[in-house]
């Protein structure tokens, strides 16, 4: 029986690892997106007393390795009485960490907005919330699409760190198979293929969104 | 026989030069002779092949047919048709100095080093020797206050004067100018033309493409009119600007406010 046959027989394990990674990834990027938008909203026209600590928090996150944050949630939080299991620590860390990156991407784009548009909307009686959700956010998201796409790929890759805090996901599946049957090369080639496929699929989706938004005229603001 | 003879005495001699860009003939059988100390101006409408002619002279553009000699030395190919190795080509090229419409200063080097770069790394001059030469040349073009400035801090006119100093630093046999003032704001054109005029007075050999008719008339020894890659008229500036032989040139001069008094 060749090594590849062994892998085929164990396809269920790969599949569950793959689905687990997708689940973690999907949940955490939704969380990250919400956090990113929330941070942008708080940064938008708030008092300096609030924006300063937020900016410091975002910059601090961007200067930390993801795994340190995961460690902090998984190993560190119990010391102050908060106990999360590995899976939730991982998802939480991913969401917060990449949420900060999203916020920074949004903020960078927000700086390039001409003030005229906002003033015109205010003159028409838009409230702050309406202005933000109806006017600013959709434009910012459309314009930062390529950067967001890049960040999604980083987030996908960061899910693999969770194997270190014992979450069972795709890389963990390869690791356990390779130690059970001593077929590391084949096992990891398959898993790397999975990651590659997801990345390529995401890139294609981002490009398709680009076409859509070009049609809607979002790009030439 | 006579061809070889003239090649030795002239700064630039061009024979039967032809060049096409994918099926479009840009230069057609061009003959041009530039004697040492002479200033030749090339005039013509846009797309007539002026830049291409100039760029063939230092082989930035490779001609299809014909020969070009710089101070008697063939450029680009050997007399027997063998292609010239890059090192040798570079040596012949060093005999020409080129000034571009867009200046093309090297932005990572300051003014002084823009000028010393080629003398040091092509001619193998010592740093001190190159800097002395550069200092003198920058003085000549009126840029001695700006040794340490980087190109992005200079005005267009200043950039072009540094570019002229850079080309002069190789002590070339002939200076090639491709519309040196076309990219400049009108109020900066004068300072660059003044430098070029000084050079002509000092006896530098120059081939120049320009749209500044008054200037061409004042400094040229020979004016050449290029039309669709053909030289259709050549004369001394007086004759060229006062009594052009062809209708084409007369029309051209009417459209460019001809200098009645230069």
């Amino acid at each position, binding site marked *: 029986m060749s090594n590849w046959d062994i892998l085929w027989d164990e396809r269920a394990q790969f599949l569950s690892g793959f689905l687990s990674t997708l689940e973690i990834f999907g949940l955490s990027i939704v969380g990250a997106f919400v956090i990113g938008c929330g941070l942008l909203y708080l940064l938008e026209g708030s008092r300096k007393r609030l924006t300063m600590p937020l900016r410091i928090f975002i910059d601090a996150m961007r200067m930390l390795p993801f795994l340190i944050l995961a460690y902090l949630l998984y190993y560190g939080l119990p010391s102050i009485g908060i106990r999360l299991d590995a899976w939730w620590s991982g998802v939480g860390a991913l969401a917060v960490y990449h949420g900060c990156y999203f916020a920074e991407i949004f903020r960078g784009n927000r700086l390039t907005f001409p003030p005229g548009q906002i003033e015109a909307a205010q003159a028409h009686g838009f409230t702050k919330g309406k202005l933000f959700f109806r006017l600013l956010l959709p434009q910012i998201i459309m314009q930062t699409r390529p950067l967001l796409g890049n960040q999604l790929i980083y987030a996908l890759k960061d899910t693999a760190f969770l194997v270190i805090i014992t979450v069972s996901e795709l890389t963990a599946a390869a690791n356990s198979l390779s130690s059970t049957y001593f077929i590391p090369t084949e096992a990891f080639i398959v898993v790397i293929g999975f990651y590659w496929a997801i990345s390529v699929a995401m890139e294609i989706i981002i490009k398709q969104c680009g076409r859509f938004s070009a049609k809607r005229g979002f790009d030439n603001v | 026989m006579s061809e070889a003879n003239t090649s030795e005495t002239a700064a630039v001699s061009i024979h039967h030069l032809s060049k096409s860009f994918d099926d479009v003939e840009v230069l057609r059988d061009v003959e041009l002779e530039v004697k040492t100390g002479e200033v030749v101006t090339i005039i013509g409408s846009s797309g007539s092949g002026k830049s291409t002619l100039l760029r063939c002279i230092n082989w930035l553009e490779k001609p299809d047919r014909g020969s070009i000699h710089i101070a008697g030395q063939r450029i680009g190919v050997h007399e027997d048709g063998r292609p010239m190795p890059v090192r040798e080509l570079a040596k012949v090229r060093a005999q020409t100095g*080129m000034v571009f419409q867009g200046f093309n200063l090297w932005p990572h080097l300051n003014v002084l080093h823009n000028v010393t*770069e080629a003398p040091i790394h092509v001619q193998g001059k010592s740093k001190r020797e190159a800097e002395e030469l550069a200092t003198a040349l920058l003085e000549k073009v009126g840029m001695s206050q700006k040794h340490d400035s980087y190109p992005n801090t200079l005005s267009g006119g200043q950039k072009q004067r540094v570019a002229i100093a850079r080309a002069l630093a190789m002590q070339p046999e002939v200076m090639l100018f491709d519309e040196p003032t076309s990219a400049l704001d009108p109020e900066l054109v004068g300072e660059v033309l003044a430098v070029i005029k000084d050079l002509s007075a000092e006896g530098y050999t120059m081939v120049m493409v320009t749209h500044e008719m008054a200037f061409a008339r004042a400094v040229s020894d020979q004016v050449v009119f290029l039309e669709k890659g053909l030289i259709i008229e050549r004369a001394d500036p007086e004759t060229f600007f006062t009594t052009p032989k062809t209708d084409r040139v007369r029309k051209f001069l009417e459209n460019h406010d001809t200098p009645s008094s230069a």
Partner: protein
Amino acid sequence: MNASAWHMLLEGAWTTVWISAVSIAIGVVAGLVIALIRLARIPIVDQLLVLYTSVARATPLVTLALFIFLSAPDLGLDLNRSVAGILALTLNTTAFNAEIWRSAFRNFSREQSEAAMATGMTPWVTFRRIMLPQMVITSLPGLVNEMSFLIKGSPAIAVIGIVDLTRVTNRISAVTYEPLPPILVAGVLYMAIIGCLVWLQRLAERRANRLAM
């Protein structure tokens, strides 16, 4: 935290720094070499390099490190942990650096090298004196940014048993039963390292602006 804990943390930091530094040094040069090879557009080689870049950019460092470390014996290689870690980081960062160098090549204007050739420089001298220095200056901000990413990804090598600045916090808390302090200190040390790189990147950007004429 006692003195020995501090000592261990600093050792972990040193491991992170030296392994990252070696990978960065190799990765910057290898990226340039790949960019140059891709300029030549050699059939098959070019496609292979495109494939490598695409796969390397999509592969998590943890997965790559495990792959290299575990399957090296299969390929008849005897890699120790540090070499496997360096190899993983290098394979990853090289792919990104190659793209940074390539975009510097693409944006390099032909007029710049024409001006050099016109003064009599040979193509080699033109490359060395005019092209390369400008490309280094324009690429440096991107390269330094990629260095920060490498440091942030470096804890991945813990998975093959290297005791780096992240992993060492496990070792310390196994003795002290207090995981929070070492993790926080490690975080601060990472911020210090990456803070230096961010500062370097600012300098590099200011320098690069000079080229934007």
